[in-house]
């Protein structure tokens, strides 16, 4: 490691050519070319855009040495680069900030930065030196971090700063950022973009992986779109538009805005009255939450991840004990009642963790479809014996109605894509004609096509008079569907407004905790 800060980045161009990566059953990256280039001392921000599963992360994990390519070549400044492990990539000035932060929670910021680095004191740690250089870097890029705090005490935004400082510390000339804005509020995103621009102007090369069109348009110099593992095109950002990028990602025309009929709310169907609940660590997760949802309206709950949304959904769905307060659905008290009772009250739930709370991975499509009503006709006789014909007919019907792409009813659910699994859950939950629907992160990790479909279905439910509580960390989703928006911060509701009155800056400030 050089003693002084690397002022002159060491990469002026990087080329990946004909990259290939196979996983069992899928060609994840198929003959992709990708390049990042600096010019006249100014770096580049190259956005890598695509849906989930398009191959963006895979391609970049190859560049970071986490995956080994099955074909293709990588050249840095015209010399070939062979990558066997992240160590090789780090050694050539390539850094990566992962979607799930690669930090060790029990270690301090300085220890995390020192991890895997050569120490100037041989086998002994040199944390004083790390502290000093971290201070230098934070000053230069306005990234405030305290080197002596353990990671678990930091908020996600702060953890991301640690990741960036660490990458800079390691002398990353090229930095890969995998969906870096997913955990940030709109205000934090602005600050974060300022840092990225400064890094670019200092000569750094940045790869910005995203599926958010407006962010890609705002920050990048060039955009490469991937679809199904192949490169669709690479274009300068100045010539790109939202609609055009969306169509490149999906491969067909898409709708970015929905037709929404005006909302005509009816009676209150779901009512929370001063509800409190604990989080998984046993601390307060929900604090005095009071809200209501009327028939025929969608109430959106916005907030930065980890501010009580998860606890809210689980408490209403009867999966987490409510320590005080009352919940009423359809006029009945459902506080701390079992999910079974809630179903009988006309409630349906689309869970956040669909692979854990939504389906049983190893069960077939049909078995997952009848999870709730498996003991009732037409799926069972006498509450005891399964009726396979009834199960098959009903699940085939659901597959048709909800356009679920599956080889058949007996296919294990885990072999379906996220979007299709979510459609099956939707078919199961909506098939019961609910009066109250809790939808938690209904389109997280789902491709644009299925997202569009799920959104249309939710709007249809709304016009049928269902009361819908939509809990989402995707602000675009909240704004596209909600009639009213509620903001949660640290387990409390700190703001509520009709959709028409939403001001995006104010919303961002509320999400960050400003009253």
């Amino acid at each position, binding site marked *: 490691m050089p003693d002084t800060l690397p002022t002159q980045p060491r990469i002026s161009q990087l080329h990946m050519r004909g990259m290939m990566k196979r996983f069992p059953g899928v060609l994840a990256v198929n003959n992709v070319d990708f390049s990042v280039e600096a010019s006249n001392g100014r770096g580049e921000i190259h956005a890598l855009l695509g849906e989930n599963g398009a191959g963006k992360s895979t391609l970049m994990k190859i560049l970071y040495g986490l995956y080994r390519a099955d074909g293709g070549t990588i050249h840095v400044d015209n010399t070939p680069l062979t990558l066997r492990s992240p160590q090789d990539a780090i050694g050539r000035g390539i850094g990566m900030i992962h979607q*799930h932060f*690669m930090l060790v*929670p029990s270690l301090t910021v300085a220890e995390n930065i020192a991890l895997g680095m050569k120490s100037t004191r041989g*086998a002994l740690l040199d944390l004083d030196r790390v502290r000093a250089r971290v201070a230098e870097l934070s000053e230069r890029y306005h990234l405030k971090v305290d080197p002596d705090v353990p990671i678990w005490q930091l908020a996600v935004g702060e953890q991301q700063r640690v990741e960036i400082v660490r990458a800079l510390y390691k002398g990353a000339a090229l930095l890969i950022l995998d969906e870096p804005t997913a955990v940030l509020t709109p205000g934090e995103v602005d600050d974060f973009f300022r840092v990225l621009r400064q890094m670019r102007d200092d000569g750094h090369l940045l790869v910005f992986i995203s599926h958010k069109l407006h962010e890609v348009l705002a920050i990048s110099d060039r955009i490469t779109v991937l679809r199904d593992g192949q490169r669709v095109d690479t274009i300068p950002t100045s010539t790109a538009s939202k609609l055009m990028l969306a169509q490149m990602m999906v491969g067909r025309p898409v709708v970015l805005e929905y037709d929404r009929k005006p909302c005509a709310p009816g009676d209150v169907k779901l009512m929370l009255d001063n509800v409190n609940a604990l989080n998984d660590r046993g601390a307060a997760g929900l604090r005095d939450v009071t809200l209501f949802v009327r028939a025929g309206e969608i109430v959106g709950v916005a907030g930065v991840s980890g501010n009580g949304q998860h606890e809210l959904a689980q408490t209403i769905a009867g999966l987490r004990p409510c320590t005080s307060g009352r919940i009423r659905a359809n006029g009945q008290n459902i506080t701390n009642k079992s999910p079974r009772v809630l179903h009988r009250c006309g409630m349906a739930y689309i869970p956040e963790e669909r692979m854990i709370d939504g389906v049983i991975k190893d069960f077939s499509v049909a078995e997952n479809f009848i999870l709730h009503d498996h003991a009732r006709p037409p799926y069972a006789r006498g509450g005891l014996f399964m009726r396979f014909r009834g199960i098959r007919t009903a699940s085939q019907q659901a597959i048709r109605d909800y356009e679920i792409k599956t080889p058949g009813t007996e296919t294990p659910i885990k072999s379906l894509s996220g979007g299709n699994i979510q459609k099956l859950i939707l078919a199961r939950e909506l098939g019961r004609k609910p009066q109250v629907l809790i939808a938690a992160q209904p389109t997280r990790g789902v491709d644009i096509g299925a997202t569009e479909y799920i959104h249309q279905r939710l709007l249809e439910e709304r016009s049928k008079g269902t009361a819908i509580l939509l809990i989402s960390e995707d602000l675009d989703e909240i704004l596209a569907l909600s009639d009213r928006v509620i903001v949660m911060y640290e387990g409390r509701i700190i703001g509520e407004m009709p959709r028409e009155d939403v001001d995006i800056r104010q919303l961002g400030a509320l999400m960050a905790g400003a009253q």
Partner: protein
Amino acid sequence: MIEEIFTASVFASTLRLATPYIFAAVGETFSQKSGVLNLGLEGVMLMGAFAAFYAVHATGSVIIGLLAALIVGALMGLATAFVSVTLQAEQGISGIGIYLFGLGMSELLFVRLIGTPVSVEGFSRIYIPVLSDIPVIGEIFFNHNLLVYAAFLLVPAAAFVLNRTTFGLMIRAVGQNPEAADAMGVNVARVRYMTVTIAGTLAGLAGASLSIALLNVFQQNLTSGLGFIAVALVYFGRWTPLGVLLGSLLFSFVNALQLQIGSIGIEIPSEFAVMAPYVITIIALVFASKRAEKPTALTKPFRRGD
């Protein structure tokens, strides 16, 4: 009667009896800190105990005995690492396998190579001028064999390695978040191989401390559960060498008391006395492990890209 029980010799034997616990449990701390539960410790200890005993029996040299235990322990550690790191086997189950292997193999070798119970001339007590002659203090602290001192010196050394060195940082990182460590260029498998081998080597040493320092005999199942208590002591000591030391002293104190009470002829059914340490193990664990800073990746094999 209290004076008859709490004699200087009880405290002296507390320190002596703590030796195998400390060696085995400090080694296990390294292994568990890096995310590998090494449940086969008992079997490795038995192999180490036999190797040391046999070498001393054959050559008469305690140094060769010590080396034999270290080598056999290290080899058993490598085998454990191969099974749990390379083959990624379920660690609880493969640990039972290693225990049973050590139990059976050490007995088989003993029956084939020696056969009859004999004793050997093991490590002798070191006389330290002046210090050993201090009344009470001298008897308690300065009248032991080399391995007792080595065990107590191992504790600060292990704490230093874990907290102050780059290797220690890698161990802690690999046990908490191997994905992050891997992404930072740490070779997760290599770190785990090293810690598991360290645990094996120290377990071998723990065995030697029984067979050529403390008891100077070998018999079938010589360790009688001591290795399992050492695994539990790591939980009890919250994955820190100092905590492990305190736990070791607590258990060896109970052992020493039990011997003393027996020797002065107090009428307690001997089964109770033998059960006591194990009952205390369970009670202590119920209270100790709740809030502990358990390495989150403990027992979880690491495969890149999962």
